[in-house]
């Protein structure tokens, strides 16, 4: 087991193995997620976000750490809690908020909704709302890479609760036996919907303690420190690209809000949220940057530019029309239509 929690030592400072440029990217990515998700929540309160939505407030470091370690062409497979991973791959805030607001400017013009964000041009190969379904699908994308000799890695994100469903087991074994270039990322935020993961799981680390069942190394990391996540991601991607098969990485983190928009999260023990807020990933990372000597002004500039982006996106979405009704029956089949008969 590698509990990759340590800070890089030595005096390389900001120019260590991660470096300044990547660190600013990691920071900015986290802030984009934070601001966009917060905005989604506000828009929901204004009744402008319809249906359900599952936010990643508090879990930004996982999405940023992995996305910033990915190369163009690498593929992300996400869940209904997928806004963060979609934004982290560079999809615009407008397209994401537009989809949540079910407008014509949304990523899928409102046809998929909050739980199914997909942007293939960014490598976001879909967000899946049936627990566990996308783990085997990610295996398939990785199989294609292996078969064709492509060098991309498939990265599959899911929660702690997902480790108890059958598809998890089948995918992990399959990936290990076929030595596929796929990285499974478990975001352990301590809860399934409203039930603590410990109440329904036979082991302490829902993913980590299962790794050995697939001949894999146990990797449990601090999911609130983007540097830690980034390094773990980089190592797993290298392994995958070198043809050495899959990894399973459990990231310990916490969601600041409820499971979905309907959930006030009353089931949490008192003080838990507050404790985790002390380890807020954005705060941790801001401190890291400062500690490494990045000027506060540079940080503030990022914050301001992101806020501007989110404000602009919000306005664009509010102005955007609803989708036209004729898209109701398009794209059922590859010919663009829905004809099941002649």
């Amino acid at each position: 087991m590698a509990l990759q929690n340590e800070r890089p030592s030595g005096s390389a400072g900001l120019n260590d193995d991660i470096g300044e440029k990547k660190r600013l990217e990691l920071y900015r990515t986290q802030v984009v997620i934070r601001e966009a998700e917060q905005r989604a929540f506000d828009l929901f309160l204004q009744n402008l976000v319809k249906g359900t939505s599952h936010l990643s407030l508090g879990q930004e470091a996982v999405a940023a750490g992995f996305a910033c370690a990915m190369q163009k062409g690498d593929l992300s497979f996400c869940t209904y809690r997928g806004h963060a991973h979609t934004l982290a791959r560079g999809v615009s805030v407008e397209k994401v908020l537009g989809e949540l607001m079910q407008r014509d400017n949304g990523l899928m013009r409102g046809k998929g909704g909050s739980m199914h964000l997909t942007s293939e041009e960014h490598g976001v190969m879909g967000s899946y709302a049936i627990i566990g379904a996308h783990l085997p699908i990610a295996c398939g994308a990785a199989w294609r890479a292996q078969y064709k000799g492509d060098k991309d890695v498939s990265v599959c994100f899911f929660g702690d609760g997902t480790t108890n469903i059958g598809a998890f087991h089948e995918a992990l074994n399959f990936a290990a036996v076929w030595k596929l270039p796929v990285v499974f990322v478990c975001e352990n935020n301590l809860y399934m919907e409203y039930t603590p993961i410990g109440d329904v799981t036979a082991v302490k680390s829902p993913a980590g303690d299962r790794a050995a069942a697939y001949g894999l190394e146990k990797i449990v990391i601090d999911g609130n420190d983007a540097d830690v996540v980034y390094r773990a991601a980089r190592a797993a991607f290298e392994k995958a690209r070198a043809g050495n098969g899959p990894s399973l990485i459990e990231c310990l983190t916490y969601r600041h809000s409820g499971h979905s928009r309907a959930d006030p999260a009353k089931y949490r023990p008192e003080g838990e949220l507050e404790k985790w807020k002390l380890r807020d990933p954005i705060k941790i990372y801001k401190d890291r940057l400062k500690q490494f000597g990045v000027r506060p002004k540079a940080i503030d500039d990022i914050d301001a530019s992101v806020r501007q982006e989110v404000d602009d996106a919000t306005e664009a979405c509010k102005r955007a029309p609803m989708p036209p009704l004729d898209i109701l029956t398009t794209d059922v089949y590859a010919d663009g239509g829905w004809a099941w008969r002649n």
Partner: protein
Amino acid sequence: MAEMTYRDAVARGIAQEMTRDPDVVFLGEDVAKAGGVFKATVGLFEQFGPLRVRDTPISEQAILGAAMGAAMTGLKPIAEIMFSDFFAVCFDYIANEFPKSRYMSNGQTKCPLVVRTGNGAGSRFGAQHSQSVENWCMMIPGLKVVAPSTPRDVIGLMAAAVRDPDPVIFFEHKSLYPMKGEVPDGEIVDTLGSAKIVRPGKDATICALALMVPRALAAAETLKSEHGIDCEVVDVRSLVPLDTQTILGSVARTHRLFTVEENPRLCGWGAEIVSIVADEAFYELDGPPVRITTPHIPLPAADILEDIVLPTPQRIAETVKRSLGS
């Protein structure tokens, strides 16, 4: 008599049966301490305790398999599958285990259980959380399948389902949870396999289920008031057993049949009822039997799209009117 929501009727129906019979137990994801993600089972955990009302892992196969094993050996489990779309991850129990074990064992194996689930569209949840999948179950020999449309029926059919010695799939419509209705005090026990004529009429029979019942009723009102067409609306309530007598009897009076279903078009329960009527009451029919369905497409998330995809009162009324040539 009290007014109560369809949502609260679920908890009341379960509580009624758990109070009556200590062998009734209840399991599912987030159903116990949290009272269910639709808040339809609030209070049961507190009332019946952690041994009878149990939270499970996200393991739908384990939930249904465990319910079956318990049912085989003496309990009367009620299992929740949160959204009916998730039947797809535990379909083996629904299609291959529950309904076949008694037959294969030549009558040895019993399976008295209820699977209750949130079915249907209207919440802007998109294609994987909005389906209407009654036909997935109706097509499997050996199951019983019910879908109440009112709070009263929720309680009465729940009681009938729990007391039934066979596996019953119980479809609750998500969009009906907030709907209110009058419910008598005291124990309510209905019977499986009985449809209800919820509006008598003489010009056409409209068969509907669950959320489509209020919509069919609304359409019937419009048809009557605006076009003088007097429709009989049948709340099918139970797909298996199917009350063909009530349906055939109604068609024998009205001579026209319409079915209104939320299933996508192909192989829905509407096709089954149309086929039965076309075969057995062909010479009673004065015109083609017509199905009004959701089109055969995945469901969209956007409100503006979802609002037009299911049969609406307007579409029902227009279809009936056009077909009757008025």
